[in-house]
């Protein structure tokens, strides 16, 4: 986030704003002049209560929504053969994030083919590798999403995103729907992947305990405006803004002190 590392930013967002127009003529300002950036290989958390615009910001970065104003500069070298912009996204709902009519393996094959992997043997070994990297195995390749648990589905969704070798992976409340033990598994998995590759995360969450565990830097959004930005530990330990303090106080586990994961 500091000026001297600006050259190695995977994502640089400046002055982002988004206005949703309703059909009745009304307009709602979801984002107003929000700027943030993600260093290569780091994890930026976006926190705020629901309706604060964090998902909208993530969707604009992903390219699923268009911004009303501002710039999104993506500094992601495209892998050879890739058809995407270098950004992938894992969604909140594990039950909607996989095609229910497609077996896990054939879905991965389809993505790899799209990604330019022509030879079937290459794809097959890559599918196994990807499933192993998210703690699943070949047995799961033949299964359909309906026979997988929520945590397994979310891990498949992560494997699908990783298959495309994105420079930036957006996790939009990706672990919020999972129960605590599965959540921990997936978070550990994400940390491991970050160690092994140069991937960067944009981590959207309302769960400050999780944010503390996974992110290096974070920004706090309130009603579409940026209220605080900086190192995660600094912000969570000594918030400068009353809104941030209120968010921290709202964590429903009084006295609970999460320890930062030692990477």
């Amino acid at each position: 986030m500091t000026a001297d590392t600006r050259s190695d930013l995977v994502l640089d967002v400046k002055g982002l704003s988004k206005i949703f127009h309703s059909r009745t003529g009304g307009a709602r300002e979801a984002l107003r002049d929000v700027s943030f950036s993600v260093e290569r290989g780091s994890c930026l958390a976006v926190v705020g209560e629901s309706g604060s615009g964090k998902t909208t910001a993530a969707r604009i970065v992903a390219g699923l929504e268009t911004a009303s104003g501002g710039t999104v500069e993506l500094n992601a070298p495209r892998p050879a053969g890739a058809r995407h912009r270098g950004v992938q996204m894992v969604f909140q709902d594990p039950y909607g994030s996989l095609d229910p009519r497609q077996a896990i393996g054939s879905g991965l094959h389809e993505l790899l083919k799209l990604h330019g992997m022509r030879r079937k043997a290459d794809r097959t070994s890559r599918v196994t590798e990807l499933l192993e990297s998210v703690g699943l195995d070949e047995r799961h390749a033949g299964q359909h999403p309906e026979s997988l648990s929520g945590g397994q589905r979310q891990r498949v969704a992560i494997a699908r995103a990783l298959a495309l070798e994105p420079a930036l992976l957006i996790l939009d409340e990706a672990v919020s729907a999972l129960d605590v033990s599965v959540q921990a598994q997936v978070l550990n998995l994400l940390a491991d992947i970050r160690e092994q590759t140069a991937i960067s995360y944009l981590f959207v969450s309302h769960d400050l305990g999780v944010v503390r565990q996974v992110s290096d830097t974070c920004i706090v959004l309130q009603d579409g405006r940026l209220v605080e930005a900086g190192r995660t530990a600094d912000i969570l330990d000594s918030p400068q803004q009353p809104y941030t303090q209120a968010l921290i106080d709202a964590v429903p586990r009084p006295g609970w002190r999460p320890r930062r994961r030692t990477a």
Partner: protein
Amino acid sequence: MAVTWAAAGIATRRRFAAMGRPALIASAAAAGALALVAVIGPWIAPYDPNATDVLAAGQDPSAQHLLGTDSLGRDILSRALAGARLSFAGPAMIVLISTVLGTALAIFSAWHGGWIDRMANRLLNVMFAVPGVLVAVLSSAVFGAGFWAPVLALGVVYTPYMARVVRSMAIRERHQGYVESLQLAGMSSWRIGVRHLAPNVMPIVVAQATYGFGSALADFAAVSFIGLGIQPPQAEWGVMVSDGRSELLDGAPQQTLVAGTLIVVTVIAFNILGAQLSTRSGGRR
């Protein structure tokens, strides 16, 4: 008969849907048996359905003619069996046309959303206001009576029924994470639509096509009944109901009764089957 059926209402469908598994099996068996007859009917007919025999005209059911003969001495059983093919071919084509048009329109408008979806929705509402048999009659008047004029007209008229149901399902699927993540992966809209959206709305398409088949059969028979569809002496159930009217007044109701019963039974079987499939495919209504 067609108009009243279209107005039969959601309450009836709910009742059909609530009947459970035995109704599914029974209606599927009945619909399957009738469809089989439509395929092999002309081959298993004991007599030539168009062979007249003036000496055996207007006979009551007997060992030779199980359902009797009509005023021209044609075997009613043979005409009912052979006529099943044309009676089914019409609605089958109607359902095929409306399914292809309706599904494509629904997925297209659900995919693009915004003003395209609103325009499509308005178009569908206008099309809903158009009575099917009337358009089929007009079509026959313009293009000439026969098989294709009413079939094409009814195929278009049935499109909004398919499109409305599929559209609501497709809109729901459109914003599922899996569709958006395929977009992010760089897959073309066309490919996502064909390979991922279409298979996921297919259960509701099949259910709605089954519903549509029942009403389409009734409408097609109605058009033939008023003389603008299949033409006598060709065997078709609507034509048979019409042919039997004079005999009905002479106290020999077999022909009208047989053909009419077949139409009613077929429509009921397909409607129950459609309702059953619909509740099992997670669709509304």
